[in-house]
Every structure is written in C-alpha cells, then in structure tokens.
C-alpha cells in the first residue's frame, strides 16, 4: 500500500523548497511581516498613549457659575487645560486656537451649566448639565479616537465624584476646520477604518497582478524566442521596450479607472450602511475625495502602476522563462505589502523619521498615502508623491532601455546562489 509514496514526497519537498517563490512567499515573508506588523501596532498604540499622557484640552467657558470652575479644576488635575480667547466654538476653531495649543479636543461649557448642576443636586436628579465636546478628525489611523475617549473618561471620573450622570456630553467632530454638529468622532473613526484597510489591500492586489502580467509577457517573449527575433528586425530597440510597456500601461490604465469607479461606489455605499439614528454621511461631511482629488488619486495610482510595470519588465529581462520571471518579480512584493500594512494602522506623519523616509522612498506606498491625503483635502502630498514616483519611473525606464540596447537582454541572468544548485551558466546555455 502507498508504494513509492515516500519517494514522491521527498522529491516534492525538494522541488518546493528549492523554488524561491515558495520560500519567499510562504516562509520568509510571514517571518518578516508579522514582526513588522507587531512593531507597527506596538508603536501606534504607544504613540496614542503618549498622546493621552501629555494631553491638552481647550475650554470655552460660557458659564459664569461656580460649577464651571470646579469642572475646569477637575479637568486640570488630569490634563493640561487652556482657556480659549473666544466665546464661541466656531470662532475658536476658525482662529486656529486648537493648533496654537497643540490639542485636538475642544470643550464648551454652555450657559446654564452651573444652574443645571445646582438644580440636579437640590431639586430634580433628572435635570443634567451638559458640555459640548468637539474633536478634530483627521482620518489618520485606527487609533485616532483615543483623544475623544480620554475626555469620556475624565467626565466619567468627575461624575463619579459628584453624582452619576450629572454632566453629560454632546459630541461633535471638526472635519477640515469645520464643525460638524452631532457627528460622533468615535463612530466616524469606525467608519473610516474600513476604508483605511480596503484601500491598501486593493492597491496591493492591483499592483501585484499587473506586475505578474508584465513579467509574464516579457518572459514569454524570451521563452518563445520571439524577443530574439524582434531584436534582429530593423526596428528601434527603444520602440520594442516602449511598445511592450505601453501595452501593459493600457491594461494598467483601464485597471486604474475600474479601480476608481469601484472605489467611488465603495465610498458611496457607506451612506446607506449607517445605523438609523446617526446622521453620518461621508459625502456631506466632505470625507469623500473631490473630483480633483479623484483625478490626483487616479494619476498617483497610474504612475505607481507604471513604475511597478517597468520594474517587472526589467526583472523579467533577467529571467529565462515565465516561471523564473514570476519568482523574480515576487521579490518586489515585500515592498508592496509592508507599506500597505503599516499605513493601514498608522498615519505616516506619526512614524519615526527613518521609517517615514523609507515609506516615502518606496514608490508603491504613494497611492495609499495619496488616497488618505486627498480625502482630507491635502492635495500637495499627492502631487509631490506623483512627482517623486514619476522621476523614479523614468530612472527605471532609462535602465530598462539601456538593458534593451545591449546584448545583456539576451544573456543577462540573475543567480539565486544557495536557493538552488547553480545550474548551467549563461554561457553554456548559449552554446
């Protein structure tokens, strides 16, 4: 029974382990990916905690009574409290008081606060005093709502000492410098998380697919020796390269457009998915990119695709067949996956400088950065990203054209020393 099973198993394992694609994809990537992810999560939680520890709030006090002073004193014992120079929250926001105090939380104590407190204590416990809380929403990551939950805890603590439910909160968000009354920042964060995760994943899939397509198409020409035939025809070699690239570009362009349409639909679909009673509508809140924003995002995606394709073309020029072209291209994948995972959880501006520089240096992270930037109306980040990726792509394409201009396109071959036994040399292969 099962005669020959052991022999086949050993052969199978040898073949699989010597395949660099499997080694990389299934063993090395997870070994790197999870520690990186862990470090990212750890870092983003730490920075959120630090934010709480050195937290500050800005207070607008429109209540002249004693209780407002007691309330402020209670806040002051836990966090640093600044008093606004303006009496209305709108003016405070418009005059950039928040950024002057380096805080994202604004508390307004409305008129009648002390009166209601007194009534609650002396007359009717059903009467409550309310404060209005305005939190800045910047769409920067999973842990963004930490700031507003800190205020929740402070008020809870205050209530426990005086009387339960004596002070209640009315929450609002400040989006792109505009106060949006009644929009709970925690709910908004929850809503934006799904977007923060969906964008990087789909961009990742799009880039890996198109790289596979381009690599296969070049490797196919090498395998079938049609490239060799083309190179002996009276045709400019740069034309051959550009022709091949442009074919992939058209496919990538169609993919980018399909992607934008799908993304637009995806963003629109949230309006209906919001539970009844909460009036969250991303479109009316301005948390959906403008037409110009979509255009920038489309361009950003396109140039990133182009650079990925050019990279795939160069790499596959070093491969002798389709299979090795695909494994060569898979070496680029960590540069796609790691930025995507990091940017799902953390705002790029919150990262240490070295990590930040590394992420900006990887061209494939720019569409993800741009998607968040254009949603928040920050067009310059997207524009600079497009400029950088375009330059990067031009350099890659220059290298590709140099490669195509020499005999290297036929004889070049990368070796995976140690991954598999060194087979025939290029020279032997050529006779």
């Amino acid at each position, binding site marked *: 029974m099962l005669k020959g099973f052991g022999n086949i198993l050993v052969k199978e394992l040898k073949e699989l382990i010597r395949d660099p694609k499997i080694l990389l994809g299934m063993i090395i990537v997870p070994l790197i990916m999870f520690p990186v992810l862990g470090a990212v999560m750890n870092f983003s939680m730490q920075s959120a905690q630090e934010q709480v520890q050195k937290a500050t709030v800005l207070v607008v006090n429109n209540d002249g009574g004693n209780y407002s002073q007691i309330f402020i004193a209670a806040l002051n014992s836990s966090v640093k409290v600044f008093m606004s120079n303006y009496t209305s929250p709108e003016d405070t926001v418009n005059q950039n008081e928040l950024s002057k105090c380096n805080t994202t939380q604004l508390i307004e104590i409305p008129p009648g606060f002390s009166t209601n407190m007194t009534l609650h204590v002396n007359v009717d416990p059903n009467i409550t005093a309310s404060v209005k809380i305005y939190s800045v929403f910047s769409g920067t990551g999973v842990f963004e709502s930490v700031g507003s939950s800190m205020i929740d805890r402070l008020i809870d603590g205050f209530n426990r000492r005086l009387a339960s439910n004596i002070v209640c909160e009315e929450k609002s968000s400040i989006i792109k410098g505009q106060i949006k009354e009644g929009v709970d920042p925690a709910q908004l964060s929850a809503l934006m998380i799904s977007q923060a995760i969906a964008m990087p994943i789909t961009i990742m899939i799009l880039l890996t697919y198109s790289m596979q397509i381009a690599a296969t198409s070049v490797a196919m020409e090498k395998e079938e020796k049609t490239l060799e035939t083309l190179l002996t025809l009276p*045709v400019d070699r740069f034309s051959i390269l550009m022709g091949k690239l442009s074919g992939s570009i058209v496919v990538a362009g169609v993919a980018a457009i399909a992607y934008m349409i799908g993304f637009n639909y995806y963003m629109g679909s949230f309006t209906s998915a919001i539970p009844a009673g909460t009036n969250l509508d991303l479109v009316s809140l301005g948390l959906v990119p403008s037409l110009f924003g979509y255009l920038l995002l489309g361009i950003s995606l396109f140039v990133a695709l182009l650079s990925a394709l050019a990279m795939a073309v160069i790499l596959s020029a070093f491969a002798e067949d389709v299979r090795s072209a695909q494994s060569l291209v898979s070496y680029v994948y960590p540069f796609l996956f790691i930025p995507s995972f990091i940017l799902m959880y953390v705002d790029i501006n919150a990262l240490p400088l070295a990590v930040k520089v590394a992420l900006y240096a990887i061209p494939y992270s720019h569409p993800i950065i741009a998607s968040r930037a254009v949603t928040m109306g920050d067009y310059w980040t997207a524009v600079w990203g497009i400029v950088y990726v375009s330059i990067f792509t031009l350099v890659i394409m220059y290298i590709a054209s140099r490669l195509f201009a020499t005999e290297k396109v036929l*004889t070049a071959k990368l070796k995976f020393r140690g991954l598999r036994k060194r087979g025939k040399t290029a020279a*032997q292969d050529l*006779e």
Partner: protein
Amino acid sequence: MIHESGEPALDNAIRIADLTKDFGAIRALDSLNLSVESGEIFGLIGPNGAGKTTALRIISALLLPTSGNVEVFGLDVVKKPAEVRKIISYLPEEAGAYRNLSGWEYLHFMAKFKTDSKDEIQRVVNDAAEISGLGERLRDRAKTYSKGMKRRLLVARALMTKPKLAILDEPGSGLDVLHAYHVREIIKKYVKDCGVTVLLSSHNMLEVEHLCGRVALLNKGKTVAEGEPQELKEKFASANLEEVFAKVVGLA
C-alpha cells in the same frame, strides 16, 4: 527593405575573421574564420556546444564579438548593426510565434517591419502563406499549431521578405521527415528563385548534405574542416559527413 534581384551582389555575403567570443571564463568561439559567398546555402555543422548559435547571433548583430571582425555584405556588424538588420532575417532555434495571434496576424506583424506599403505587405504575406503550406490553418491561433506547423510558419516568415541573407538556426530541428522535407524545399526554392543567401546551422549532418552547397565543421569554437560535402567525403574517405566529423575530431 526588399532585396531587388537586379542589385549587383558582392562576392562575399559573410566574411568572418579571427572571431572570438567569451562568456565569462568560457570561450564559445576561438579565432573563427569563415566566408560565405553570395547566393549559396552554407551549413555550419557541429555538435551541441560547438559555437554554432553564438556565431549566428553575432552575425545577426545580437551579440557583440569579444574580438575579431564580422562583415555582412561589406557591413561591419559592430559598427553598422542597424544597416545589417535591414538586409538579414534571423530564425532562432526552437523559436515560437505569438501564442494568441493567428498565423495571418503573425505574418502581417512581421511584414510591417520591412515595408510600409499595404500592397507590398499583402504580397509578402500571401507569398509566406503559400510557402508555409498551412492553408486555412493560418486563421487559427499559433498556440494550436503543432511543432512542425510552427516551424513552417517561421521559416516562411524568415524568407518572405526575400532578405539578402537568411540566417536559420537549426531550421529542421525536431521535425518529422515530411515537415523537414517541406522546409528544405522552401529554402532551396528561395535561393534559386530570389537570390537569397542562406546560412544555416544544424547538428543533423545528413540534412545538411542534402541542402548545402558548402559546409564548415565546427568543434569547440573552431572550424575543423570546410568545403563542399562531396569534396570533404572524398578527402576523408568517408561515406557521409557524420563519418567525416568523427574522423576530424579524432573519434574514429
């Protein structure tokens, strides 16, 4: 550019002098000397690894020589590769066609590199269709072709533009008797009718004997014998070229 038969031909189609090619530490060609006359079918024969493909690739301006000189109809392949590409056509060993293009589409695609005139393209493609003998199958995608059909398509492609020099690497390799015969007939017809010069390589010495006016025997990057098949057989007192080769390299 289409070769016009009225053009005065130079005596030498190919002149190779002291050609050496190194790939790293390996010397693929070692001071190779060779000349091919205009209008002949010349065969490079030798075992695998003798340097046949490397020599053909250098003549086709695909690879650069490490040292030595190669001229095609008086044009230096290193100094004027673009000019050389206009007058040659090259058929790589075991080449394929584009899998998702039909035979017709492939021939059209290739013809457009040689001429811009629509009538000329049509004429060239019709010629190729006829000599390939593929008939209606030309409408099918190349991935459905057998090895023999693919080779016939590619040989037709290489000859259809009537290049001054056709360089064919193992034109008959892996083909059954019928397909190999058909391919040989195509080559003979083109040389006779259109004044095309053919340089081909083969490790099938019997095939070469049927086809080539002159041959050169290559071993380890060097010419070990050169001449007409009959002449060589007499010189080495052999029944066929295989025996000649065995005697020359000292196997027999």
